[in-house]
């Protein structure tokens, strides 16, 4: 009886605890996948990039280029750059975006030519994000980045290496696009939220991005840039029409809305005009007013009703009042698209190249300049997704025809206007052209009133012994004149 009791006890517990060997084979997370289709990775990268680009960089640093009068936690307040802003940007761009693009690229290369489209898109997006990163931090891991096996502590490259490397990457992407087979190509028409798989448009965006970067390089290595710019400008592979614009679309449906809008509705009220959250900077406003540019009425709303577009006194934290000027609700709206590149930018580069005498660039500066303005006005007044405030053809024509022969300063002004609502491009435009002259904000302890770079992420500093010391945040970058 006793033996039976003991046996029963042991057996009963043994039954509860199952067999050891098979019971331990459970170390696979049932809620994750071990591999992923490019059609899921590509959207994740694009949306994640945008979630950071518009909400973190967009709503927070538009006052660095003084497109906005004030921003939340702008890096220029408090005398330094926000650790959160700089850390989040570094983390998301390198791991969630570039890391995944690198995996996507590796897998697609291994799959052969039928995935050249995926590889090309991955390369182009990597180029865009590396351009963002070097524009924000200057020295960044590039040549040794995204290869932890070989380079566990990636070295930081100087900006010249990064920018020229991106140009090479874009050339490779363009080459891949040219080598897409006629059949059996991997279908990304649903997952490509930028161009719906239209690789011709991706090629144009790649070339446009390349042109933008060459114009940056040109400040320091004109020979390198000038050897490449004419072929780009004379060819027909740049973004030429607003229909080809590279932009990320937002939607009216909650959860898919533009962060410039959601920050208003979450924090303040139903819209920007009634809550006066986003207000324009004085230089931008003055430029539009002085030139009679019809974009003044597209971009802004004068709450004073006087047509004088009054602004708050310059200063850190200067949000407009209910009787001053704000960014229009037609801009700060849920489905306002995030612009990556417009054809107007190309035309202004063309005008600049001609005015600067880059040999071999066809056309004339005035035409390019007018085309640029025309395209810009058409975009903001007609072609932008979900356009609300419009310009008629007659209004556009009237303004464009009023323009005189442009000077370089005029082109710089147009480039400044053209980069509206694009945090990195507008910042780069000011730094590259050293124009327009921005206001020195009272109380700012940054020389010149404009920061030139972010500090490095503390996480990278901790983990990577190759991280250089932070230069002063008002120290020029390599590409600046």
């Amino acid at each position, binding site marked *: 009886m006793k033996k039976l009791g003991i046996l029963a*006890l*042991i057996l009963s517990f043994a039954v*509860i605890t199952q067999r050891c060997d098979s019971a331990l084979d459970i170390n*696979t997370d049932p*809620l994750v996948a071990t591999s992923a289709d490019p059609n899921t990775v590509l959207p994740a990268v694009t949306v994640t990039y945008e979630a950071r680009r518009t909400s973190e960089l967009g709503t927070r640093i538009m006052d660095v280029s003084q497109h906005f009068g004030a921003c939340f936690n702008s890096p220029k307040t408090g005398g*330094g750059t926000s650790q959160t802003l700089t850390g989040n940007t570094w983390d998301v761009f390198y791991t969630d975006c570039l*890391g995944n693009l690198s995996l996507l690229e590796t897998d697609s290369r291994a799959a052969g030519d039928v995935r050249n489209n995926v590889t090309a898109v991955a390369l182009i997006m990597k180029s865009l994000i590396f351009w963002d990163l070097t524009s924000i931090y200057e020295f960044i891991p590039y040549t040794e980045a995204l290869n932890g096996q070989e380079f566990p502590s990636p070295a930081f490259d100087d900006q010249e290496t990064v920018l020229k490397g991106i140009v090479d990457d874009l050339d490779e992407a363009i080459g891949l696009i040219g080598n897409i087979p006629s059949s059996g190509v991997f279908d990304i028409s649903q997952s490509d939220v930028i161009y719906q798989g239209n690789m011709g448009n991706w090629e144009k965006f790649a070339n446009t991005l390349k042109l933008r970067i060459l114009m940056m390089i040109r400040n320091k290595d004109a020979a390198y840039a000038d050897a490449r710019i004419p072929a780009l400008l004379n060819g027909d592979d740049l973004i030429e029409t607003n229909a080809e614009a590279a932009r990320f679309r937002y939607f009216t449906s909650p*959860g898919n809305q533009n962060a410039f809008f959601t920050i208003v509705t*979450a924090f303040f009220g139903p819209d920007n005009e009634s809550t006066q959250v986003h207000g324009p900077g004085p230089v931008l406003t003055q430029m539009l007013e002085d030139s009679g540019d019809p974009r003044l009425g597209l971009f802004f709303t004068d709450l004073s009703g006087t047509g004088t577009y009054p602004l708050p006194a310059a200063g850190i934290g200067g949000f407009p009042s209910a009787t001053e000027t704000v960014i229009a609700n037609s801009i700060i709206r849920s489905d306002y698209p995030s612009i990556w590149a417009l054809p107007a930018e190309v035309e202004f580069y063309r005008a600049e190249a001609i005015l600067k005498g880059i040999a071999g660039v066809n056309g004339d500066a005035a035409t390019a300049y007018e085309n640029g303005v025309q395209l810009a006005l058409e975009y903001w007044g007609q072609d932008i997704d979900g356009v609300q405030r419009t310009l008629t053809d007659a209004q556009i024509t009237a303004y464009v025809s009023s323009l005189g022969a442009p000077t370089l300063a005029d082109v710089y002004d147009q480039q400044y206007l053209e980069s509206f609502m694009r945090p990195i491009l507008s910042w780069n435009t000011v730094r590259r052209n050293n124009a327009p002259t921005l206001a020195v904000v009272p109380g700012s302890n940054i020389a010149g009133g404009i920061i030139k770079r972010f500090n490095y992420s503390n996480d990278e500093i901790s983990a*990577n012994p190759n991280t250089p010391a932070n230069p002063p945040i008002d120290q020029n970058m390599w590409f600046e004149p």
Partner: protein
Amino acid sequence: MKRKLLLGFMAFVCATFTVSAQRIVSGKVSSSDDGSTIPGVNVVLKGTTTGTTTDLDGNYRLSVPEEGGTLVFSFIGLVAQEIEIGSRSVLDVSMDSDVQQLSEVVVTALGIERESRDIGYAISAVDGEELVKSRETNIVNSLQGKVTGVSITQSSGNLGGSTKILVRGVTSLTSGRNNPLWVVDGVPIYDSNTNTSREGQETRITGQRDFGNGAAALNPDDIESINVLKGAAATSLYGSRAAAGVIVVTTKRGKAGAGGKPTITVNSSVRFDQVFKAPDLQYKYGGGDFYRPDSSLWGTGWGPRIVGQTVTDPISKERVPLRAYEDNWKDFYETGKTFINNVSVQDASERGDYRLSLTSLNQTGILPNSELNRITAAFNAGFKHNDFIKSRFSVQYVNTDNTGVGAGGANDQNIVNWLDFGPSLDVNAMKPWKDESGNQINNPDPLSNNIFWVRNENASDRKDDRFIGSYQVDLTPFQGFTVSGRVGLDWNYDRRFLENSVGTITRLQGNFDIDNIQRRQINVDVIASYTTNINQDISLSVLGGYNYNSRVFTREQLFSNQLVIPELFAPGNASVNTPNRDFNERRLFGLYGQANISYKDYLTLTLSARNDWSSTLPLDNNSYFYPAVSTAFVFTDAFNISNNILSYGKFRASWAQVGNDTNPYQTLFSYDPLTISQGQYSLNLTYPYGNQGVLGFRAAPEIPNAELRPEEQTSIELGTELSFFNGNIGVDVTYFKTNNKDQILQAAIPESTGFGFRFVNAGEIENEGIEFALNFRLANGPVKWNSTVNFSHVESTVVSLFEGTDELQIASGFTSVAVKAVPGKEYQLFAIPVLRDTITGRPIVQASDGTRVAGEQKAFGTVLPDFTMGFVNNFSWKGLSLSFTIDWRQGGLISARTVEDLVNQGMTEETLQNREGTFIDRAALVDKGDGVLVQNDIPLRSSKDFWQSLDDNGIGEHSIFEATFVKLREVAISYQLPKSIVDNTPFQAVQFGIEGRNLALLYSKVPHIDPEVNLFGSGVDGFGIEQSNVPSTRSYGFNLKLTF
């Protein structure tokens, strides 16, 4: 406890007593604590060998000489008494607990009871009575100051908040793996502190809600004893989970009542909680900027000197005289009230015992609208069916309803902190906080919420059901051999609900988060043990066992944004619903064995070994073996040198290894299906995205490792226990050294590699320390005094990290402040310092504006204390007793962000210096461009510029303080009515008392706040970082205990 002691004690009592009867003295021995009778008490006629022991009902009969004599009553854990017999024939005795005396029989690993003298390692035991002297809602706090080798930090004054406990310092480089294992009646339980932050953010610095640690569910009224097992030799039988120590909880069992009746005990406490420490705030300058009133900056102290000038009130918008509202925080923080009522029924006989207990805890906090209601039902019953089989069933069910939990950290609209009480702010004017239509009103400025609105309209709630149960069967086929089977279950259903009502600034459209967590742990042990005496001198006991442990964690979350109907928290009422699921499961099998060989009862050698197989390790490398050896040598017995001065002396030594596994799912690469892409301020984008409804998969940011090996902990321990003057003075000293190497780390790697982390076997921490306990007791007639001093010093040195890394971030705040592991040092607090002159150490300011220049981030010192001390005292005189505990922490740094912010906003008294006119930082030097540092004479515009620039460029130095403190932790005064009075009542015993906790901060080096706080809760190792914690509280109240 006493019954258990009896059982152990009786098993070892061999003495027999010679009887030479002349007359009979009889009586009953009972406990002065609760009136229960005590079986097994030694009753000896002094100076003779004549004696007996009390029976199960506490009765004794003894033949004594006709002329009388002195009876000596003694029992383990109780203060011995000597009583003159005189002419009495009936002599009833009430015996007092010997507080803090290490029990003679202690609970070791797997619930095995062993004689203290046989144990070769240190165990700290706390009697259950100590835990209810001044009851805590979180039992961990009750241990403060009472146990050597542990460091205990309460996170905040949040109702139901967590408390961090470390046993012998930091052992793991992985944050959150330094918490000890809790074991209740032989069953491992969860002590989790799962984070819930706003909208599912994983960070603990963004609106962190500290919903408590799992062990907080244990009810002090139901606990018989707590034993803290510290070294690897003590814990190794528990297996790999015990690397950070084990806290063994034994719940109360039924005891025999007087007269064969069950004992009913009612124990009630009423307590009041108030803010423990308020900052030294200034009320001379009002809200505004540069000495001008500014209604949008009313929360600051940078406005004008308050002289009654007319200003626009930011709330009423009326023109009113400017005035100070001193201590306006008192109009917000309330006096918390706690009611703890416990009823227990218990009885026992030779066949069985039972105890049923019901406890109701009802607490309101200092934060308005915060409540903690907890009901605990506990049942413990054992039955001896016959000599062959006995069984025991123990269950605890805990229902917790915690509402209005405060938010901490930053970037959350629900945080209320000291910055909300600007010197000229009329807090009462913020009431009411909503109009008849439910809209928020009377908020101090358009960008800030009314603090009463967020407290009363926004939910931050937790409902939790917890079931901890075990069933054990012991079979004894023959004397000395027992087979025991024990199955235990810890099941927890934890539901959290966070809500921002429509109209909450920063979440105007309203949102709610649902976070449902289930944890289930099943633990099975089958143990066979055999004890025998090989010969007269040598005894042997061996055991072998099998363990199965399974843990499943399931989490389902829903984040719903933009509500149509304000108070309808249904997914269909939200414009955006984002779900999230989480799941992990782990299993572990273990085989273990232990052998104790004892020679003449003074020399004991214990050998133990265990092999575990863990599901979290690679299948082909999931087995790991670890041995332990310990010895105990009672040299006073061996050499027969016990005398009136040295009563008892024991030396102990141990060496042990413990292996350890890791968390699930670290060996395979994975892609996570995303439901959101996170944006700033939680303005997230959701999937499926856009008109095309695309989905997103992202590679996990951690590089897996399919070749992980078990971690390895090696520990040595030496110690001695000495007792002097018949046990009136006791000394216990322990030296230990532990090396934890080959740790499985989620090592941060450069994000520029495309990944944030990789799992590696690397790194080592060495803990070396000393523990010292001095016990003192004095009995002079009715006056009794017990005193214990506990001292613990441990150095947790990081020996190495992993290749290519010279520092590892453990936790970080919003600024440059971070806790990091650095080889050769204890955990360090890093921050950006002020740039200083290398010769004089004086700060350097910028010539352009006179503000201090930032240096490069550096280590300021360790966040871990140099030592901790507790001073526990118990006095009693007849029925009156007084006890108090003083707690001393020496050293360790804290970054007090609250102090930094208060200074930044001109709200503290030190910011009154040089308020008006320009301000020159005279402590500083300046380089005016010639490379020479000279006395600074660069004026700032005002003192505001000085104070506000102190944290410019990420400088964190000015928020760092040494967290040394001395606290009067606990005071309890109680009075037990004399038996002569009680005998005329329906009660067996009546006791009432006054109790208080956290009564005074006797010494502190941290200005303005309680130095004993931790932003991150117990779930991670973010020691030393504070930010907007709910203020800690001081408690005082009354207690009434009735025994029927």
